[in-house]
């Protein structure tokens, strides 16, 4: 495939985003990239008739300035309980990896990566948001890696580092950084912060190989999570989505044993378990955009605008995973989506 441009061969930069430190840092990481100035990231990101699958073969980077809507209410697809207020922020759109089950394929018409660079605006927005909250007793968890994998891009963008530093001087909320990367080294020089939840999504090798293209192998993710835990960071482990493939029970059981036989449990905040689920419209678009993905041919249940396994299948998967996890993890630390 040497006739395709390398990933990030081209960087689109909004005129209004060019002077931000994040932009300058990112451009320095790609000295040979072709720079194209644009007025608004949507001119490129929202072009009609784009091919998500083709663009994944040669992703481009778009550096933009977020103008509004910095904080969103958490999705009902996440496992957070009522004890915390869950919000997320979109610092980046799209992901370096190409997971078959990812909702981003149906959410965005482009596979290109958008990085919002005006971090100060996010910071003032969250400060403002926290100060105006009514129920100040209830903890706030802000996911900063929601529609993306921010840590995977950290060596280039340095955005996680900025957020962790911001947290040191601003109270009232915790952040979650969820990743499939093996990129903890990008922030390992920072002192651990118990208001930062580092979350790794893990899958058995067979699932990772077939359904998580481009993501580091599970062994490297486990090593990274262990390293972060040994540095004193709070860790969340996510078995989400659990993909039932041939021999999935053995695969997930082995994976759980492999992790927890050596994981320092005092650093484990919780474990999340979930089955495949997606907004119905996203699933329909994903099926059109990625016709070679086996998942789109599965006989999922379409109910209330959500595509997922049937209730019985969800129960079976969640029960199995919970039973396996209970060998190592107390029940109150296991969160499931069903």
């Amino acid at each position: 495939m040497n006739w395709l441009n390398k990933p990030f061969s081209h960087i689109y930069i909004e005129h209004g985003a060019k002077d931000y430190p994040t932009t300058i840092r990112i451009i320095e990481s790609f000295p040979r990239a072709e720079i194209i100035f644009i007025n608004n990231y949507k001119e490129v990101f929202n072009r009609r008739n784009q091919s998500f699958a083709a663009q994944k073969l040669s992703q481009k980077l778009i550096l933009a300035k977020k103008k509004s809507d910095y904080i969103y209410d958490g999705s009902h697809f996440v496992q957070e309980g009522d004890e915390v207020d869950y919000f997320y922020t979109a610092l980046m759109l799209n992901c370096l990896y190409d997971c078959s089950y990812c909702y981003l394929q149906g959410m965005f018409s482009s596979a290109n990566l958008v990085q919002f660079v005006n971090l100060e605006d996010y910071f003032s927005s969250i400060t403002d948001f926290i100060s105006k909250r009514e129920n100040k007793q209830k903890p706030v968890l802000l996911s900063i890696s929601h529609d993306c994998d921010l840590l995977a891009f950290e060596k280039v963008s340095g955005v996680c580092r900025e957020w962790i530093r911001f947290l040191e001087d601003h109270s009232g909320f915790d952040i979650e950084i969820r990743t499939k990367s093996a990129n903890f080294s990008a922030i390992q020089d920072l002192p651990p912060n118990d208001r930062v939840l580092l979350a790794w999504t893990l899958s058995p090798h067979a699932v990772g190989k077939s359904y998580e293209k481009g993501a580091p192998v599970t062994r490297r993710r486990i090593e990274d999570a262990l390293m972060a835990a040994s540095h004193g960071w709070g860790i969340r482990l996510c078995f989400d989505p659990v993909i039932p493939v041939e021999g999935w029970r053995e695969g997930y059981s082995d994976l759980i044993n492999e992790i927890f036989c050596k994981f320092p449990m005092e650093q484990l905040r919780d474990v999340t378990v979930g089955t495949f689920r997606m907004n119905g419209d996203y699933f329909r678009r994903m099926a059109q955009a990625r016709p070679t993905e086996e998942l789109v041919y599965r006989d999922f249940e379409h109910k209330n605008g959500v595509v997922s396994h049937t209730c019985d299948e969800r129960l079976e998967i969640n029960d199995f995973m919970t039973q396996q996890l209970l060998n190592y993890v107390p029940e109150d630390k296991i969160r499931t989506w069903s």
Partner: protein
Amino acid sequence: MGVLSEFKKKRPVLLVAALPVEARPLASALNLKFYSHGEYRNDKFTLIITGVGRIASAISTTKAFCLNGDYESALNFGLCGSGDSKHEIGEMRYVNRIREMCTGRDFFPDPLISHQWKESAIQCHDLPVQDRKVMNFDPLAEVVDMESAGFFQAAAHFLPPHSIHCIKIVSDYLNVSKQSIKVIEDLIHLRISEISIFLERICRSVIISPPKIPANFQESVDAISKSWRLTKTQAHKLNRTAIGAHLRGADFGLIIDNSEQVQPTSKTDRNIAFRNLCRELAQ
């Protein structure tokens, strides 16, 4: 699973040039034959000559797509002017942004396919540009032409942006003196081998075709649909389930063979057999 369907489906590439002098060297190098007025063809390429200007280019490109909508990609090839004397005459440019000057709108080809040229933004004007000050309207767009915006907008109705390309040869510095036909043809001839390499690349499809199950299994699936008198929805679902099983690498020959022996006699039996078959294929 193959990522690219290289040469699997031989769809031609549409080449769009404004003038015969731009088209002739290409037609000759690609061994294209006269097809009709302003159109040359072979199996891999269709070259059209649109006439000068944004509108002419848009109309002819649209016409070409309407007469044969199944092009793999489209390329606008032609001359451009430059306001910067640092650019050498004969230099090639791959266009990564097109500024339509009359509207101020920008259009973006999606540069997935690699090439060996420098890239530029281009200003597309409705009249020949002879005053370098005009370039100041968009100083980041270093070269000027009269067709790219029309071509791109027309092609974008039929193709994804990664299949639309504009390449230009710098032929003048916005001066009034006309280049002779011979000089222009020589400029293009010098670049023909580079252009040919790029054309080979854009002949390939980047988009993956939807998967199919092997023909013999497809026949069996169709036979089951027919003999069981499946509803359209059921037949569609069976087909999709079989594709999913094939993508998982499941050996479903035996399941299909066994199912062919089943002959449900009522709707209820048919529906049960259908559900069982789908369940077995999905495992």
